[in-house]
């Protein structure tokens, strides 16, 4: 899996050849047949992306250019969260959101960064975290990026709130507070990108 992951940006044929090279490269005599089947959903993903509204474009860095509001990069540490919250609060205010929505966006970003600090690389991630805020029409787009190992998205689920216990609320809060929450395809050099969006309903 690590091999496939390292070559996840290659075309399918290249990825298969990488596996074949790995199998053949050991120098051992090959005695059994081996069939490798690769399924690439890249074309389907492009089709899906074409059908989606502009604000869900998968390329990170939509914050470049005219829609850019703010960008901050900090070490993955709890004592930097207050600084990020201040930037997010002011950027969201600049985008014209009301106080309730501003507080909601601040909390959602904070909880997302907490997930990086607490869970990335098994809780040992000590790299950088980036938050990029941009505006496209009346949609606020927030990309939260790290350079940690790939997140297993299937394991990120909100817990049952009827089970009252300490912890595990972050994912639920993020989903409640934002209009959309999606992991984007990783950057070329790895890492994770979580995209949050929220519509400014004052501008309807």
């Amino acid at each position, binding site marked *: 899996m690590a091999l496939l992951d390292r070559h996840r940006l290659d075309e399918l044929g290249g990825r298969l050849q990488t596996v074949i090279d790995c199998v053949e490269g050991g120098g051992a005599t090959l005695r059994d047949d081996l069939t490798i089947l690769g399924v690439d959903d890249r074309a389907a993903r492009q089709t899906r992306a074409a059908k989606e509204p502009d604000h869900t474009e998968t390329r990170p860095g939509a914050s470049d250019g005219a829609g850019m509001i703010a960008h901050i990069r900090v070490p993955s540490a709890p004592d930097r*969260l207050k600084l990020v919250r201040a930037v997010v609060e002011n950027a969201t205010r600049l985008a014209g959101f009301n106080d309730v929505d501003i*507080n909601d966006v601040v909390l959602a970003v904070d909880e997302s960064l*907490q997930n990086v600090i607490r869970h990335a690389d098994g809780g040992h991630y000590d790299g950088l975290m980036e938050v990029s805020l941009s505006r496209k029409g009346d949609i606020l787009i927030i990309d939260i990026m790290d350079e940690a190992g790939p997140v297993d998205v299937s394991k990120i689920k909100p817990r049952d709130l009827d089970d009252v216990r*300490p912890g595990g609320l972050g994912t639920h809060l993020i989903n*409640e507070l934002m209009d959309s929450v999606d992991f984007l395809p990783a950057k070329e050099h790895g890492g994770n990108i979580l995209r949050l969006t929220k519509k400014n309903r004052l501008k309807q």
Partner: protein
Amino acid sequence: MEHEIRDENGATVVAFRGDVDLQSSPEARKVLLEAVARGTGVLVDLSAVDYIDSSGVASLVESFQKARKQDQGYVLVAVSEGARRVLELARLDKVFTICGTISQGFEEIG
């Protein structure tokens, strides 16, 4: 985050001020568990809390459950607007006993 802890009317009052976030919640948790360990009813004053996140809420839930196991009263009083919003989103506003004022909190604990 700053906190104050005091005995009043036979109960323990814990008041937090500022941001209860991932950086400060370990301290909040320690303070709350120490308050519960005193064995009296506990009132947690959240009137001056500017910001609370899921880690701060987790500290409240843990200390509340410990108090309940020991049949101690535990109420949140004068919950700030921001803190109430988070409790509502987490659907904990129906789990905690929440009083509008500290005097109502003392009445609730009895």
